[in-house]
């Protein structure tokens, strides 16, 4: 008695604690390591240079997602600049005995979409990807670490990552969600409140009735944006919704192991008497669909909101707001609704799963992409693409005038050459609205699939609730 309860974070961390290095860092075992083509080739190269091998190729998987074209009928060379990455990834993986989900593979896609979909990532497991959106899989109750190239090489060689234990932050998502509001809107509302650095040094647990009520895909979207709160890892405690979602996936345990795993997964919750280093309540009850107006993900308003007016702010707060307003081509104090849009992108590890595409297709159905708007729908994985096509979503998008793409990261970071034009206003279901992220001078507004679809068919930023 008297012993304090443990947070879910501590349960998972402690279960993976291999040892403590003499420099005080803790060795955390990585259960599943997923690589991608933009950064893994460098790590394979450095590993070979050092004469080291991949310690656990059987727990390591390679994904081709960042530098691949998403144009229908693509091959290695469709995006010529990316071909070197795709080939180096293929060769490095083969040389090291790592299975690669290559172009043309039925399971190719964005790593953060494919890993959950295949059951590669499991509740209570640790997961590393050389990508800051590794945190996505926290939606299944996994503890994930986005990492750099040297850390990636270190995990390849040792299967552990060396870290200082982060602090714990719980974000309590209270109330319930209204119509046309989903995981993305919740995530943006949290970033608006916490700020882009508020999660720095913390692992975040998303809890409360809204987190519980989100479907698994919505939780993946919510956790995806953890890094935009400044935190490396975020998760939702797994429950029956997750267990049912994972069951029978290709890499999930089966038979007696399933039962054993399930019994363990049911212990993965934060004990009632646990103490967090920090807690934040976010009431989601009256949340409108959210949209970023500025150039960092915390610059968020409701779709019925107005661009801030710097003249009403203290002098020392004005400069970054003025700069963002100027870059985004906005009028201080004006409504965000009604601004003309040049391009719409529905995709990325944030919002490219089947329910995202269904939400968008529901709005697009029977309508046309507005004149002058370029609209793309890019499924998060080849499996999502097949599932969507089986439901006829591809027809809905194509009939409306959307480009229906192959799977990949595409316009999210533009590292496959997919970018907007300077000055173009883009409604994007991605995760970063940084200056120049989607191309020089591109004005990115982050939204969920509902607002993106509404803008595609009206040609303007539109409150989907009025459509």
């Amino acid at each position, binding site marked *: 008695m008297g012993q304090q309860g443990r947070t879910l974070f501590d349960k998972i961390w402690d279960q993976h604690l*291999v*040892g403590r*290095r*003499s*420099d*005080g*860092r803790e*060795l955390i075992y990585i*259960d599943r390591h997923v690589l991608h083509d*933009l*950064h893994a*080739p*460098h790590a394979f190269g450095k590993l070979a240079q*050092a004469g080291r091998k991949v310690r656990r190729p*059987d*727990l390591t*998987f390679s994904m081709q997602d960042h530098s691949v074209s998403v144009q229908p009928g693509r091959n290695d060379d469709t995006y010529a*600049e990316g071909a*070197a990455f795709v080939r180096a990834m293929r060769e490095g993986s083969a040389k090291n005995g790592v299975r690669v989900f290559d172009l043309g593979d039925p399971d190719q896609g964005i790593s953060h979409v494919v890993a959950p979909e*295949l059951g*590669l990532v499991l509740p209570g*497991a640790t997961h590393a990807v050389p990508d*800051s959106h*590794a945190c996505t899989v926290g939606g299944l109750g996994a503890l994930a670490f986005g990492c*750099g190239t*040297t*850390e990636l090489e270190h995990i390849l*060689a*040792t*299967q*552990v990552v*060396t870290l200082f234990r982060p602090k714990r932050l719980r974000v309590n998502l209270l109330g319930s969600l209204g119509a046309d509001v989903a995981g993305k809107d919740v995530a943006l509302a949290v970033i608006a409140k916490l700020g*882009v*650095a508020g999660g*720095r040094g913390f692992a975040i647990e998303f809890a409360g009735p809204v987190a519980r009520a989100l479907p698994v895909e919505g939780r993946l979207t919510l956790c995806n944006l953890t*890094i935009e709160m*400044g*935190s*490396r890892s975020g998760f939702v405690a797994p429950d029956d919704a997750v267990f049912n979602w994972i069951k029978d996936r*290709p*890499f999930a*345990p*089966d038979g007696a*192991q399933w039962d*054993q*795993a399930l019994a*363990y997964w049911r212990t993965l919750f934060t004990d009632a008497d646990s103490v967090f280093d920090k807690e934040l309540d976010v009431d989601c009850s009256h949340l409108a669909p959210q949209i970023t107006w500025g150039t*960092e993900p915390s610059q968020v308003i409701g779709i019925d909101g107005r661009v801030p007016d710097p003249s009403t702010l203290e002098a020392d707060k004005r400069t*970054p707001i003025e700069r963002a307003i100027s870059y985004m081509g906005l009028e201080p104090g004006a409504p965000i609704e009604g601004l003309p849009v040049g391009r719409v992108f529905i995709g990325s590890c944030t919002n490219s799963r089947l329910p995202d595409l269904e939400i968008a297709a529901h709005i697009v159905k029977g309508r046309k992409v507005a004149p002058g708007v370029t609209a793309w729908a890019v499924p998060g994985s080849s499996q999502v693409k097949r599932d969507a096509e089986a439901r006829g979503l591809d027809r809905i998008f194509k009939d409306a005038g959307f480009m229906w793409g192959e799977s990949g990261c595409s316009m999210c*970071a*533009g*590292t496959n*050459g997919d*970018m907007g034009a*300077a000055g173009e206003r883009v409604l994007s279901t991605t995760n*970063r609205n*940084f200056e*120049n992220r989607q*191309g*020089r001078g591109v004005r990115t507004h982050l939204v969920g699939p509902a607002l993106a679809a509404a803008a595609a068919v009206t040609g303007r930023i539109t409150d989907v609730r009025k459509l």
Partner: protein
Amino acid sequence: MQPFTTLSGPAMPMIEDDINTDQIAPLQLAKGLSPDWGQLLFKRQRMNADGTDNDHVLNKPQYRKPAILVANENFGCGSSRESAVWCLTGVGIRCVIARSIADIFRENCLLNGLLPIELSGDAMDRLQALVSQTDGAQPFSVDLPAQIVCAPNGETFSFEISTSDKTRLIEGLDEVGLTMKHENEIVAFEEKIRGSMPWMQEARDRRL
């Protein structure tokens, strides 16, 4: 890894919050697997639309070979791309001083012999002012063993860093080598999990 003990050279001011790794390393402009990382540093921001240099601080002649970059809050946020560090070291920057530094970026610094320093409050106000006033005319210096930043006028600023991070920078230790001293523990951990949670230790495609 290149060890870090002391450093002396121009300190370049970029006193802004939330400078992200997309800005530091705009990978869309990189050509091939091994571009000139130094050339890529802040490339979008220091170019006009026609490709000519603009008035970005990095284009000033006194910052041709900067040693220290001084920023404000949350430096290095966003993408985990380690190339952001390679771009900085590519022009010779081996120390970043900010009020706060993003988690993943900070780890990437430590793994590349780049010293991340966090300073706050009045000390940081003063250092930023001195860096802006000096404008690259005279060198600032950093002494990691003594944990001190020294301005050209002799003013000093002490900073905190964990003993472990300090040691690994000073000794330029091989990370993998350090960890592999624990190989027995890794093997024992794997054995234990194979027994208690076998599904964690195998990732088998049940369709094959």
